[in-house]
């Protein structure tokens, strides 16, 4: 017996594909939107925190930022997600799964971004800031036009990698019932007693993430050729 047709029939059944694709693809749209919001907010907050850490002379502020970053880097994302989603209702704060996913993943991303933008800033010579200030630029103008463009360029490969990790982590939302790609595929898969929706969800995730992976390859290639 030839195994190939039965494999395709099981894992990529056209009938079931036709029935479940709309559900899975609809949740794919939601996942992309949420992923986009998380990336924008996470990167924005991360850059803000790194800039604040560079600006401040107060030890307490630095310690708070480093503590925030360390805690969020040490906790597994799923643990944070479950703690936020299942523990908050005990004090009568009910939080919806989408919001919980958004908050947790944005916070985690901001911590990683803070770390790599901060190392980008630290890798720059102090002279860059001084040169800009000596021409009369304000601190924030110098930051915007001179320090951050260079620091972000240095950090770009790491930022790309964290974006990849973040989009992958949206799949964790399914555990608390956020109806993203994996969650809806699992439901459809058990409804139809067939793994085709799961295959589809895997393909959807790969299609979402592969561009970032290829972009990071391009970056690596570009710096490697210098």
């Amino acid at each position, binding site marked *: 017996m030839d195994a190939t047709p039965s494999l395709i029939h099981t894992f990529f059944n056209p009938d079931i594909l036709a029935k479940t694709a709309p559900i899975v693809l609809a949740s794919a749209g939601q996942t992309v939107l949420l992923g986009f919001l998380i990336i924008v907010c996470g990167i924005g907050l991360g850059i803000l925190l790194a800039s604040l850490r560079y600006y401040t002379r107060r030890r307490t502020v630095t310690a708070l930022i480093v503590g925030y970053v360390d805690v969020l880097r040490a906790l597994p994302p799923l643990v944070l997600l479950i703690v936020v989603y299942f523990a908050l209702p005990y004090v009568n704060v009910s939080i919806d799964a989408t919001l919980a996913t958004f908050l947790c993943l944005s916070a985690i991303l901001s911590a990683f971004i803070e770390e790599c933008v901060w190392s980008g800033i630290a890798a720059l*010579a102090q*002279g*860059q800031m*001084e*040169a*800009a*200030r*000596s*021409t*009369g*630029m*304000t601190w924030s*103008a110098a930051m915007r*036009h*001179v320090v951050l*463009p*260079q620091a972000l*360029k240095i950090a770009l490969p790491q930022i790309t990698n964290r974006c990849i990790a973040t989009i992958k982590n949206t799949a964790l939302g399914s555990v608390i019932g956020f109806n993203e790609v994996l969650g809806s595929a699992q439901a459809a898969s058990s409804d139809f007693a067939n793994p085709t929706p799961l295959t589809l969800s895997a393909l959807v995730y790969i299609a979402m993430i592969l561009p970032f992976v290829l972009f990071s390859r391009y970056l690596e290639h570009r710096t490697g050729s210098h």
Partner: protein
Amino acid sequence: MQKRIILEAVGIRKDYGALQVLKGVDFRVREGELVSIIGPSGSGKSSMLRCCNLLERPTAGQIVFDGIDITREGVNINHVRQNIGMVFQQFNLYPHLTVLGNVTLALRCVKKLSRAEASEIGMAALAQVDMAGKRDAYPNQLSGGQKQRVGIARAVALHPQIILFDEPTSALDPELVSSVLGVMRKLREAGMTMLVVTHEMGFAKEVSDRVIFMDGGVVAANDTPERIFAAQDNERMQSFLSRFLNEK
């Protein structure tokens, strides 16, 4: 009749914790003058220069620029700095911008000039340092001497009333020094007021109107180059100068 005073340091002191780097420094720079600051390393020359545009805040004393005490609270230092140019030992060019981009950044985001206006002024400044041909190059494509000339153009483009030079040739290979000193000579002839921390004794002797010799955080001598370089009265200055002049 004496020209007006552009920059005046009054009793400048600077402490880093327990370490006293400047112990009360006074001097004046008049319009059109080129004043050199020389002295052994660790004498506080660079700290003094960096106090002049408040990259370092003096612990005590005043910097009076164009008749205004800029060390007072409430002075808009960013506004003042547009009129005090600075050239750095390590150039500190912005590696992510072209030569012209380096020169025009402050024109555009501090003086709010349009791209065209800023380019025109930037090109004029680059022409003054013979770097107009490299307007689209990036800093890492330039030699040290070329980088420093762009650094000078960045300061010149803002049309400051004075330019501070912090050992502008110390990071250069010997064969590249003369091109930078040449540009500085030209600036002087054009009437620019300059305050130069330097180890180039030949330059200090030939081009300066006045030389300030700093030692141990104070001004040990402040006089014309002829008198400084013929000085008999300060033993430490003599030993310092003879070491440098013998090297030549």
